[in-house]
């Protein structure tokens, strides 16, 4: 890549940040160039962000319809999936899936609720309340 080819289209996911890229300058030397990001990066990042947003919206709809517990919504909102939440909280995946049942979730002992709250970095009361 030449210095002039370093993408500067801007990437809305980067905000005001710049990322360093390596490119060849006029003298043929590889140098660091601050890039404002490229459309390619933006496409794939926003694709991932939108995917998580869609999962969150799905979860929200299910919670509001009484088909799932607020836990699932907050998990998605924190950009986690069951596998990750299980790793972070130390609660087995099948147990977490069971806790997505609204009735079971409502009866969750405070100790378990506190573990979820800790894992998601949210206060327990917020976790109990819906989206």
């Amino acid at each position, binding site marked *: 890549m030449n210095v002039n080819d370093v993408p500067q289209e801007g990437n809305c996911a980067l905000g005001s940040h710049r990322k*360093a890229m390596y490119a060849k300058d006029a003298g043929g030397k*590889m140098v660091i160039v*601050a890039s404002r990001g490229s459309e390619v990066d933006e*496409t794939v990042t926003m694709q*991932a962000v939108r995917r998580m947003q869609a999962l969150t919206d799905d979860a929200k709809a299910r919670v509001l319809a009484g088909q799932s517990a607020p836990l699932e919504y907050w998990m998605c909102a924190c950009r986690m999936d069951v596998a990750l939440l299980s790793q972070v909280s130390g609660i087995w995946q099948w147990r977490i899936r069971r806790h997505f049942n609204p009735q079971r979730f409502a009866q969750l002992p405070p100790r378990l609720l506190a573990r979820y709250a800790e894992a998601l970095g949210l206060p327990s009361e917020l976790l109990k309340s819906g989206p």
Partner: protein
Amino acid sequence: MTRIATAFQHRHAAHCESGAAANLMTHHGVKLSEAMAFGLSSALSFAYLPFIKLTGFPLIAYRMPPKFILRGMIKQFQARFRFETFRDPKGGMRRLDELLAQGQVVGLQTSVFWLPYFPEDMRFHFNAHNLLVYGKDGGDYLISDPVADLPQRCSSADLQRARFAKGALAPKGLLYFLDGVGRTDVSAEAVRSAIRRTVRIMLSPIPLTGVRGMRMLANKVSKLDTSEYSLHYVGNIVRMQEEIGTGGAGFRFIYAAFLQEAVQITGIAELAALSERMNEIGDGWREFALRAARMIKGRETFEPQKLGDMLRTQAESETEFFRILKTAVA
């Protein structure tokens, strides 16, 4: 203990670990660029790990695993790195304050998700982000994040969360600092052996790593259907390659910069041409990313077969490249 009185200098880098290593070593009097830190520790790689899933997609790595570069520094410079992890977050923060008070620049392993200065859309659960702390101002830590162009600040509570995040590659509050270095120069033999090691990694017989890993991924991509999932699958490859602090093209451009520096140290003129070639291979990777992005955006029909072929071409070019590189440093 050798301590350099000069103030810490923040330098913008493409990759967090090589940047942190290079900036920390430079602070301790070793003139070291990021590219040299990257190349000397033989960090360039490729691995397709379908059994490790990140938010449902396989891990595709263009470099060696975390801490590989820091460990590389120990070997090359007889650097006396001290690594400490903590069970108790309070204790971990206390130790950080203590070291800062002694005037140390301290490296931390953190989770990107909990760092407030990161742009919202870039905050994913990734636990192996390296940054340096060079001071404290009131309740805020002064942070030199290698991938940020300017120094940053972070509150104590946020930093604690980021250091003690759980999950895969959990940092456990890991901090590291340099207790002096044994040597400050880079020998020609060190560069040659680092290159030889990279050649071995890239041409390794293990089917999931190096150029064979690329071929395996190419076959997998060729077999994808045209569903939404497949589009995300391809997007995930590109994200690993371009977006996550790689200096472009999955570290291929950084490696080209390293080879260029290596010419001066080893005196092997052939490496200059090889650096040029690596640059072209990097362009090939970017071409792949561009095509994939166009397909994701729907500007071009989604043909997984075509992307698979591009990956196969990349694998061929790299196979040829590393064979020549092998003879150049033999």
